[in-house]
Structure formats: structure tokens, C-alpha cells
């Protein structure tokens, strides 16, 4: 006996999992990786507005102005797959990750394998658990994985096929054709199969399942559609030999899928031990409140998932994707592993309230490492702080005091701006992103320094000064390092950049000799005049 958990519209459900309120609204999922980006899944509300799969976003919006377009998110699909597999694993040790949104379970040896009455409540329980994770699932049970899958597709929400399918030797199919085909309505076929099912399931329902449920190859599916074959029943009625002769062994496989005789072996998997949730934000996030809102949901979900297998959180890894392409990462070790949502969330919140990123946040990922809930003994040589939460809070306060651009590691930027650098965040992992589109650019990462015979001793920060100009040439310098006339100059040297946004900068630079024989490098910028250094 096999069970299949089927999550309809899996990609869409994965995206809406953390925004369940949207389920009742017209929402459409666009796959931008397609050659011509189009809608691939949609909510019933969107369907009711006339939106259909295959439309472009613009076409869909033409039909429904309120339509919310969401991009497909592989990251969120991965999270949802984890949830699905981990949930299934909590119910059976033999599970297969069949496809996105599909998990097949072998029920051999389980208590109800010989007691049919218990099977439906068991399946219902799976659905309930997944509902806690905001995934609406259906479960099908049958003697082969393929039949279970078909049952799952037809279920509402549970269906068990208790015995095998019998085929009627029907030589021909009489289609009921109507003008509706131009409006996209499918064709019905007569009853072909005799199946005994739970919950009043009838053969007609099974045979009227769309032919796509058998998952033929796109080429075979196109041929079958040209033939006018819309349903499984109509397909089976064509006869295996006839179809196989024309469409080859792949078509024969389709017939085998509905055969109760040869269950295929499952490719068993064990769910990953890492638990993560992630989300790509449609709109960039610039304040902490919406981030905390989502983060709270993540903590809840992860805690529940661990609770399902009697574990608690030992470590969080927080990752923020930034619009600049860079990533902000932070590891939180939990000194006393816990499943307490409030404790876990507060720790993240304290940290995030002090974080300043140089560009808006575009994605969020929170991964948890699990541990058993018992108390833990520190290792002798372990340098871990006894109270990491406290330490994190200390660092966060330090950042708040000094500014996020002053705590971390400086990195030179590839620009003409002298000394341009950025601070990478303290404790940031090495995987910070490089957003260059063209890795092959012949741009030096570090700006070349003008070779000079004299070493320049830099003032850090540059020394603010007052410079008097005569005919745009520096004539008098007043600063902490020197006050007096300038007797010779070289320059100016001009540079300006980032004219395209608020980061615009400009600089005029001179080398000057002062009346005491010193040589200084001075410059003028939007911020004023400065002495940058002295030549030794």
C-alpha cells in the first residue's frame, strides 16, 4: 500500500505560505525563467476573473486589475519541499520525494496496513499537520505509487483505492463535442473504468481525470490533445497496442502507470536535517518592521517543524539578501537549545534592530540546526561564550553607537574615487555576493596608486581646513597641521563620479608647498576643503 501527498499548485502555495491572507485574493504566479514569462499557477479568485495559465503578466492584468503577480520562488519551493518531506517522515520512514509538491510513502508494515478503517484518519492527520505549515494537501492511497498519485489528484481531500482497476474492452470512444471547445472547456467521455473507492468515489471521476495527470511527455501530451484525448478514460480506451505502435514505449509506460500489477520501487530519501525558511521579497524592504513580521512567522514555522520530530533549535543562521547583490549573514548559537518562539524571536529582533544595511533587503533566509531539548555540557576547549545572546546584544549596541559603517572589515572598491572602501559587516561570512554581471570585466579591483617618489603620510580622517584661492589656485592654507601661505602648487587633479544617484561625489586635488617648505596634498570636495596628507 502506498500513500501520496499531493500539494496542488505547489509553487503558488510555497510562495503564499507566509502570506496566507492572499489565498483568498486573485494571485497569479509568474515563471520568469520561461522563454516567454507567463503565468503558471493561480488562485481560484484569479481564475474567476478570467485569468488563465499561459497568459503574460500584462495580459493577466488586463483581465484583472487587482491581480497580485508573484514571481516563482525556487527558494520558497525548497522550504516547502523540506516541510513536506519532514512532515511525511514523521508519518512513515519510507518516503520518496517524487516531484515538487509530491511525496510518496510506502505503508508496508504500518499498523493500519491490515486495518483499513484507520487509514483515512491517518491521512487526515497528515493534511492537518501540513495545514499548520500553510500547505493545503490531498492524500491518495492505493496499491501502487502511480495509482495512489492518481487518487491523490482526484481526492477531496483523501481518497483510498481499495482494489484494482478493471478495464472494459471498449473499442471506440464517443466524444461529446460541443462548441464549448472554443471556450476551452474539456470534453467528457463515457464511463470506462470500474473502481471501488472510498468516499463515494466513482469510476467516472477517475476516468475523467485530465490526461495530464498521467504525466506524459510534452510531445505525447501534444499528440493526445490533437487526437482529442482529454481524459485518462479516453486514453485507456484507445488500446495499449495501438497506442504503443504509434507513440512508442513511452506511451506504454502510461498504461503501466494505471496497472495495479507492478508497483515500482520507491527512491527512498531521508529529509535533510537542516530546517530552513526563506522568502524573496517582491518589494525591497527598507525598515525593520516588515522584516520582523516575516521573521516571526519563520521562527514559528521552524519551531513547529522541529516540534513535530521532538527537537528544538540549537542554532539559527540568518541570511539577508541585499539589492546590491551582497548578502548579510549572521550565525546565532543558542546557548540553551529551545523551542520557545518568544525567546528565539527576541534574540533575532535585538540583533536586527541594530543592523544597518547599505542597500534594501530583497530576501530573507532563516535556517535552524536542531538539537535534543536536554541540557548541554560545554566542551573543555570550546571558546563559545556562555551567553551568546548577551554577546550579540553587546555587539549590536556597539554598532548602534559607532554606526554600521564603522564596525567590520574595510574593503577597497573598484572606482576612481580615492580611498573608496566599504565596510563589510563584522562576523560576516566570506560568501558576500559580488554583483558584477560580467565577471570578465577588465577592471582592476584595487585602484592603482599614482607612483610618486615621495611617500605620503595620510591623515585619517583627512584634516578639515580652510583654503583661500587666488584664480582658482590655492594660496593660503589654514588647518591644524599648518597655517600660512602656499608658495607652489601642482594640479588640480579632477575626479568625480556616481553622478547617477545620491552618492555623487567630486574632488579637486592639489599638491602644495607651504611657506615652511612642507609638501601637502590638499583637496576640495562637496564636504569642504581638507588636507589629506603630508609628503615626507
Amino acid at each position, binding site marked *: 500500500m502506498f500513500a501520496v501527498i499531493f500539494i496542488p499548485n505547489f509553487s503558488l502555495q510555497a510562495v503564499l505560505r507566509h502570506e496566507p491572507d492572499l489565498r483568498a485574493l486573485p494571485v497569479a504566479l509568474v515563471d520568469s525563467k520561461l522563454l516567454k514569462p507567463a503565468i503558471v499557477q493561480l488562485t481560484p479568485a484569479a481564475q474567476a476573473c478570467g485569468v488563465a495559465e499561459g497568459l503574460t503578466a500584462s495580459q493577466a492584468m488586463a483581465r484583472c486589475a487587482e491581480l497580485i503577480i508573484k514571481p516563482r520562488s525556487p527558494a520558497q519551493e525548497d522550504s516547502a519541499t523540506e516541510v513536506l518531506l519532514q512532515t511525511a517522515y514523521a508519518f512513515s520512514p519510507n518516503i520518496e520525494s517524487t516531484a515538487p509538491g509530491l511525496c510518496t510513502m510506502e505503508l508496508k508494515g504500518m499498523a493500519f496496513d491490515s486495518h483499513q478503517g484507520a487509514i483515512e484518519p491517518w491521512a487526515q492527520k497528515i493534511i492537518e499537520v501540513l495545514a499548520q505549515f500553510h500547505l493545503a494537501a490531498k492524500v491518495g492511497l492505493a496499491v501502487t505509487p502511480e495509482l495512489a498519485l492518481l487518487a491523490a489528484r482526484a481526492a477531496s481531500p483523501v481518497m483510498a483505492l481499495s482494489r484494482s482497476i478493471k478495464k472494459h474492452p471498449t473499442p471506440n470512444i464517443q466524444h461529446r*463535442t460541443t462548441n464549448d471547445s472554443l471556450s476551452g472547456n474539456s470534453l467528457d467521455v463515457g464511463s470506462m473504468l470500474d473502481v471501488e473507492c472510498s468516499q463515494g468515489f466513482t469510476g467516472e471521476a477517475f476516468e475523467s481525470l485530465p490526461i495530464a495527470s498521467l504525466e506524459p511527455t510534452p510531445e505525447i501530451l501534444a499528440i493526445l490533445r490533437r487526437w482529442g484525448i482529454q481524459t485518462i478514460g479516453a486514453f485507456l480506451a484507445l488500446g495499449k497496442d495501438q497506442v504503443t505502435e*504509434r507513440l512508442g514505449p513511452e506511451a506504454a509506460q502510461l498504461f503501466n502507470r494505471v496497472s495495479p500489477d507492478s508497483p515500482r520501487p520507491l527512491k527512498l530519501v531521508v529529509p535533510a536535517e537542516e530546517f530552513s525558511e526563506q522568502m524573496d521579497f517582491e518589494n525591497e524592504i527598507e525598515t525593520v518592521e516588515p522584516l520582523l513580521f516575516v521573521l516571526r512567522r519563520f521562527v514559528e514555522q521552524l519551531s513547529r517543524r522541529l516540534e513535530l520530530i521532538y527537537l528544538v533549535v540549537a542554532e539559527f543562521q540568518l541570511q539577508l539578501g541585499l539589492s546590491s547583490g551582497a548578502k548579510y549573514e549572521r550565525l546565532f548559537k543558542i546557548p540553551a537549545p529551545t523551542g520557545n518562539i518568544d525567546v528565539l524571536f527576541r534574540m533575532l529582533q535585538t540583533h536586527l534592530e541594530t543592523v544597518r544595511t547599505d542597500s534594501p533587503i530583497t530576501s530573507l533566509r532563516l535556517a535552524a540546526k536542531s538539537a535534543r531539548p536536554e541540557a548541554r555540557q560545554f566542551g573543555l576547549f570550546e571558546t563559545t561564550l556562555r551567553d551568546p545572546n548577551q554577546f550579540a546584544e553587546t555587539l549590536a549596541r556597539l554598532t548602534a553607537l559607532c554606526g554600521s559603517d564603522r564596525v567590520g572589515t574595510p574593503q577597497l572598491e573598484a*572606482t*576612481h574615487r580615492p580611498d573608496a572602501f566599504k565596510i563589510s559587516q563584522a562576523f560576516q561570512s566570506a560568501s558576500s555576493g559580488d554583483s558584477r554581471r560580467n565577471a570578465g570585466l577588465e577592471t582592476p579591483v584595487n585602484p592603482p596608486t599614482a607612483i610618486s617618489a615621495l611617500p605620503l603620510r595620510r591623515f585619517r580622517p583627512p584634516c578639515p581646513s580652510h583654503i583661500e584661492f587666488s584664480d582658482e589656485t590655492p594660496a593660503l592654507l589654514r588647518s591644524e597641521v599648518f597655517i600660512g601661505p602656499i608658495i607652489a602648487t601642482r594640479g588640480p587633479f579632477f575626479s*568625480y563620479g556616481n553622478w547617477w544617484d545620491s552618492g555623487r561625489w567630486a574632488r579637486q586635488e592639489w599638491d602644495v608647498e607651504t611657506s615652511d617648505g612642507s609638501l601637502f596634498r590638499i583637496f576640495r570636495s562637496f564636504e569642504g576643503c581638507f588636507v589629506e596628507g603630508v609628503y615626507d
Partner: protein
Amino acid sequence: MTETYVELHCRSAFSFLRGASTPGQLAERAAHLQMPAVALCDRDGVYGAPQFFSRARELGVRPIVGAELTMEDKTVLPVFVQSRAGYENLCQLLTRAHLRNEKGKCSVHWHELPEFAGGLVALVAPAFQPAPQVIEDLRHLFGPGNVFLEIQRHRVRGEERANKIRIDLARHFGLPLLATNGVLYASEAERPILDVFTCIRNHTHLDVAGRLLEQNAERHLKSPAQMCELFRDLPDALANTVRLAGRLDFTLENLGYEFPSFPVPPGQTMDSFLREKAFAGAINRYGEVPAKVRAQLENELALIQKLKVAGYFLIVWDIVEFCRQNDIMSQGRGSAANSTVCFCLGITAVDPLKFHTLFERFLTEGRKTSWPDIDIDLPSGDRRERVIQEIYQRYGKHGAAMTANVITYRGRSAAREIGKALNLSSDVLNRFSNLYANGDFPHTLDLPAQMEKSGLPKTHPRAAAFVTLCSSIQGLPRHLGQHSGGMIICQGKLDRVVPLENASMPNRVVAQWDKDDCEDLGIIKVDFLGLGMMSVLQDTVKLTHELGRPVDLAKLPPDDPESFALMQTADTIGLFQIESRAQMATLPRMKPQNFYDLVIEVAIIRPGPIQGNLMHPYLERRKQVANGADPAGMPCYHDNLRPVLQRTLGIPLFQEQMLELAMVMADFSGAEAEELRRALSFHRSQEKMRRVEKKLREAMRRKGHSEQLIDEIAATIGSFALYGFPESHAISFAHLAYASAYLKAHRAPEFYAGLLNNQPMGFYSSATLIKDGQRHGVKFLPVCVRQSEWDCTIEHPSATQPKPPEFDVRSSMLEVRSSSASEDHPIRLGLRIVKTLSNSGAKRLLKERAKAPFTSLIDFKRRARLNKDELRTLAEIGALNGFAAHRREALWEVEKPLRQNDLFEVESMDTSSPLAPMSYPERIQADFAGMQLTTGSHPMALLRPRLAGILRAADLPAAKHGSTVRIAGNVICRQRPGTAKGFVFVSLEDETGISNAIVTPPMFEAHRLVITEEPFLLIEGRLQHIDGVIHVKAQRIERLPHNPSVASRSYDFH
């Protein structure tokens, strides 16, 4: 003033993404800085030289010609031209370097330099750090005093160290230093454009381009004083610029272009030979040559002789002869084509004496730099290509070239590229492209608003830069394309006049200058324009001959009532020039009754007359004349203009009238009229038009005309800068329009077959053409592999098979207009209509069928050897129904594998297909899937029972003016003409015809996506029925739920 500095190293935007200003901007800046001369050195070409030459000369700056050569090792060697020989060498060198490479690439081999170094001066640029031996070689190649070491200062720290090395190098080798600023843009303000171009060129964006970008904005054109200040320690480097500029006295004025002479028989001159041919032609045309014609010929021949252009006429005549000998229809147009000589030579079909469009009035000695203009219209496609290849063959690859078409940054494409460079999110850019995919609509939304709707708020830190860049980048060159038909010829030595390069099309060579530049420099071009309608006419005439009811286009009856009836009722789908929605909306008001009415109709629906507000007054006066008013009494700007404007009821509609108007009212000379004509032709140059207008106003003031009259005339002429039509063009086009109307009226089957065989062309899809044909009683038979040829053909009645029941067109839904004569000649759709059928597959099919008819589907599959996709499509559209009971049976059988080696296979099908036949709607859907058309019912006919209260197109004439009506249909055309102030016109097709809706700008903005994206619409609005023109002014627009796969292609926002 003493000359102190001349800038000798400027790149313009014609260096394609390596310079940020137009040549004109550089010339203007140089003039502003009082620089006596400037050299333009674009990368690998002289693309911008003509524009630079003409603008600089106007401003009193001496334009020096140069170019940067990309060498085979990627170093760049700037060179200047000091003599015509040098210019010819440069052109030949560039031609060779381009022609050996694919389009857009150029590499000069070092070993080629010796051959072409004569007359050139080389510059060792800062980026080039040659080995000592290379410097010696260069000096040896170019000669003493012809190699300079360039030195630049851009106020960048560290550059002096490199300069010091160069100064030492110059001293060591005794080379003169040359100070330049390596100019990349005219003024500092254009530096951002260059940065954006750098990003585009390197496929990156500003945030990561880093040191690829300019460090500062110092590479602009600086004044001599600024440069003297910068190089005050190197006075020689400055003085050398003046000295060298003095030596570089070559200008494009001295191109040495000569049009090839025409080989004439011994004892003849070109003039005598032309005379002989012209008079021989006159006898052919008129029989006995009337005195009036003879006199006109004498006049014209004398003028042609005086201007020494007989060779040009003979060469064009020769090309037209080639067309005639090779069964290629041709028709001449253009200013010189208004001549009786051209008419007699057979170049044109228009007798200018009939229409008073005499050419010598404008072909005067004033046209010193501009040659007479003859365009030749040819059937588009292969036939036109044959003519072009013949020209290449006759004049050699280095003797003939297509003129260039400089593609410039415009509208949406510019915005998208800038958006990418600014690193705006791809979502915003995609949304922008989607929302404004059909053009820019500044009428209702400016660019910031468009971007805001696309997701880029006006407060975005980059929004301001985006908007500024979008406007400043407009019109800058993006890349070089080829003109659709303009060719320049110079017997065997065109590559000495202008560099040539490969076009992206195989076997095409393109010059580096566009047609306006060529015209400016006195290079004669001949336009070989491909017209789809010429192909249609030629094919249609051929079909009429095959059917035994031939039509001779040269002898069409004038003023054929049935042809004009089609026009008067706007039944003009498929007709040349008068099938657009705007034409259809005018025809019932204009009610053309003779050929000249048609000429006016062709000319009046142009942006020029529409924008000049000339169309409505003309139609109004026409109405008055129809009601008995005296045409001679119509208001005219001035009594002196009556002879000029009388034939158009006092309204100037043609370019020729504009010129005459200027001659009469402002005493413009022939040369000034020519200047005006060129300004009218230069649609893009507002500046040129402003200058001529100023001259015109001053001249009219001098003649004492009132300011009001001056304003009126200036405004009228100004509007013609927007695509006004010359009368001769209108006459030529009207000829084609009349011929197409005649054929539609009298040879409908042949005409529709011709149209279908030349798609895509015109305003309507094949699906719409077929429906129009059916409404005219033409019968269309489906594609059949046993009957169809590649092209659509006319079947002899006896050959027509009884139609299969599934193709029973619901004729009750169609209003059949025409006689049964058309039904007697049904059109069999050709294999070319089938979307997935390859050319080679179709050829094989036809070849096998010619050997022996196919006896069965198995026989067909075996012999035609089509792939599965082709077989499936043929089965799906019913083309295999000759072998099967229905389409699905054929679909079932085509999947059955062939047993290739079984010689004894029984050639009969198992007819027990388990598949049900397709329903009627399914067949329609299959037709659209396989052919994008159907010979069956219009998709709307199937919906009709559910469309209660919705009027069909055919019902609209009976509806009351002002009443509220609902129409629905497949959108076949969406238009938003620039002249319509943001109004949008939507054409809906249903089973009875086409209905038109007008959408106001606010309504369009409110329903933009529904209108632009939905293939079927339901529109409710007020019916406007005025003078036989019917429109629905939309008040409510919504989607009509229908299967989009049965929609025809829509002709949108062209």
C-alpha cells in the same frame, strides 16, 4: 586673431558607443570656442564626416577628415587626411579592413599600411606605446613630418609620468609632439552619456563599471586658451596643431565623385543616344509624336545635356530594361521621373503632360550639389534582390553599395538600455517594456509617469538621471543598418569615395553614409524600393493570363466605375495605400470619381496635410463644389497662387505646390526652392527647416505681404516637413492603387491569390483577407496535399473537388457581394500557408506528386518523406483528408510507423481509427493552429448565438447616428497616430466585416492593458455615422471571453 590651437582628435557618437556628441554638436562647440578648424577622427570610419563637414562649413569652422584605425593587434592608430589621394587611400584601407570581417568589425593589417599611407598623417596616440622599431617603421611609412606623438592632459594624477616618457621618446626620435584633448564629447554635460555608452559597450552597469568609466569630464572640446594653459610648458605641441591643421586642407567638397558613364554605340555620345532612345520611346507611347510632346522632349533633353546627367538617365533606363527582360515589374518615381523623357524611356508610367508635373521647373542649375532623383519601385522579395545583385555584378563589389541607415537611439529602446546601465531592476524594465510595448505615448503620459507606472517612483534616486539621459541620448547613433533600397554607384571605385562594409545580409555591401549624406555630397543614388503590391500585381496579372482572362495593367480602362465604387464605399481591404483605417474613414467623404481624386486621396492621408490642418478644409471645399460652388472661386492665399493651387481647390497638398508657392510668394530662385525641398525632405532636421522658414518669411516681408498671410503660408509649409508627399509620388502610388482596385473589382480570385502569396504585407492578415474575399464571393478551398501548389492557385471549375462537409462555410452569416464569376474560380490555398511545413519538404512533396499522384496516405508518407511535425500539421488542418475520412483519422494514421523495407506492404489504411472526428469549432481551432487562418466560419460566428444585443459590423449602417451600440470582435488593428492627439483607433473584425471604435486618451489609459492585450473585445459606445463613415466612440470596453488561439494577427501601433 592669432591661431594658437586646433583640436585634431575628436570622436563623435559615430564611433558607436565610443563618443557622446553628434558631429554637429562638436562643430557648434568648436564655432562657439572660435576654433578655426577641428578634425573628426571616428573609430574605423568616416561615418560622421558628411554631417560634420556640412555643419562645420555653415559655422565657418574648417572640418578636417580623419579616422582612428583599429589595427590587427587591437592598437589604435589615428590618421588625418591631407589630400584627396590620402582620402582615397583611407577609404580603400577602411573598406578592405571592413570587408574582410563580419559586420561591425574592422582590422587593418600592418602590412597594408605601406600601400595606403600616401596622403595620410599618423598620430601615435597615448594609449599606443610602440616599440622604438615601430616608431621608425611608421616614420618610414608615412614619411618625414607625417608622424606625430600625441600628448594629452586630463588633470588626472599620474598622467604626467606617462607624458614625460612620451616627451623623451619624441626627443629621442625627433618626432614632433602634438597636443590634443582626445575629445569624446562636445561639452562636460555629455560625460554621463559616454559613461552610459561605456556600460552598454561592455555589457555592464554603472554600479560595477568602476574604472571603466571616465575619471572626470575633461575630455570635452576645450578652448584654445584652456589648451594653451594646460600645455604652456610645451608650446611646440600647441604650435604643431596649427601647423598640421594648415597642411590638412582636404575637405569632402573635393570628393572627386563621378557617376559612371553609360557605354554607348560607336559614333554616339550619351546625349545623342539618350535622344535616340527617348524619341523611339515616344513613338511607342504615342504612335505619332504630338508637337507638344516633341517640344517638351526637346526642352528636357536640352536641360539634361546642360546639366550633364544623360548618363544617369541612361543607366536608370538600362536597369528598367533589365527588369523588363527578366519579367520584373518596375515603376519609376522621383523628381526627375516627372519628365516626359522618363515616360518615353519607359521608366515611368505617368505622362507628366497629363498632370502638369513638369520637371524642369525644379531641375535647374540651382541644383548644383543635388542630382535628379529617380526611385524605382520593384516587387519586394526575390525579384528586387535580383535587381540589386545585378547592380553589384555590373559595377563590382567596390563600385556599388547600399546607402546606410543610421539607427539612432529612440524612445523605448533608449529607455531600456539606459535603465540597464543605471542598474534599474529588470522587473521595472520588463514592466516598462510590457506596458509601453507598442510605442511611446507622450500624449497622455510623460516618461516619468510611464516609469512610475512601471515601478520606478519619481523619488527614486536614479529617476532624475534616467529621465535626463533618455532625453539627451535621443537621436544619437546606435548602429549602422542598410537603407531599404538606396544604392550608390561609382564605376569600380566607390571605395575611394566612401568606405564600404559588409551588411548583415549576405552578399550586400553598405556604404558608411546614409542617403541624405550622399545627397549632400552630390553622390547620385538610385532607390530600389520593394513594394509588396508590385509583387501582388505582377503575380495577379500572371494568374489572369493563366486563367485565360488576361489584364494589361498599362491599358486599364480609365475611371472604371466598379473600381471607384469600391473606393467610394471604403471597400478597400487589400488595396495599395488606401486600405488603412484612416484612408477608409476618408474615402466615403472624398468619394473619388476619377484618377486625380485618387491621387489626392493618396496624398491627403499623410501626417503633413493632417498636421497642417489641410485635410478637413479640402474635403469641405470638395463638398461645396459637389453642391454647385465654383472651384475657381475657392479662397486662395493670394490671387497669384490661383494657377498653382486651383487643382487642389486652393489647398496646397503636394510638395511641388509648396515649392511653387515659395517661388511665387517669396520670389525663391531655383536654388532656394531646392534648398526648401531638401529641408522638407529632411524630416529629422528641425534646424534646417527653421533656417529656410526664416529666409522665406524675410523674402515674403520684402514683397510686402501681410504678417497674417506670411504666418499662414509659413505654417502650411512647415507642416510639410512632416512627411508631405510630392505629387509625382502620389500619382505613381495612385497608379498602383487604381490597378489594385481594378483587379479586386474584376479579377478578385486572382487578386486575392496574389495577396495571399505575398504575405506578410499591408495592413491585414491572411485570415482577414480570406474573410474579405469570401464576402466578395471568392471561394477558398483548403490546403490539400493532392491539389495544392506552393502558392495559392486558382482552380479550374472542373478540377474542383466537391467540398468536404466540414468546410461548409456558414454562408448565411456572410453577405456575399460579388457575382458567381468569382465562385467559378475558387482559390486553392497553397502549401506556403502551412506554418510548420518546410520549404524543402514542400518541394519534395511537389516533386514526387509531379512524378505520380499519391495513391494513399502510406504512399504519401513514403514518398514525400516529411517529418512527423509536418505530417501532424497537415493532418490537423485537413490537408490529408484526401486520404482519410476526417482529420483525426489522418492524425491517427500519420503516427503509424512506416515499414520502409516491406516491399509488399499493402497500400491501404486500416480505417478503424478509434478517434472521433473533430467538431466544427475544433476544426476552426486546428486551422488557426496550423495556418493562422481558416476557410471556415469566422470565429465570431460561433460566438454569435451568445452575443445578444451586440451588433455585427454589417448591422452598423442601419443603426441610428448617436445611438448607443455594442460591437464585438477580433482586434485586427490598434492605432494611435501621432496626429490624433492621443486618440486610439481600434478595428474589430467579425463574421460580417470590420467595425471601428475610437477610444479617448483617458479611456485608453483606464483600459490600456485590456485594449493592448486582449485579442477579442466588446465595446459599447455612441455610434457616429457621418458622410458614410461609421465609428463607435467607446464608452465601455471589456474583454470578450474567447479562445485566443483563433485570433488573427493584429496590426498594432506601427
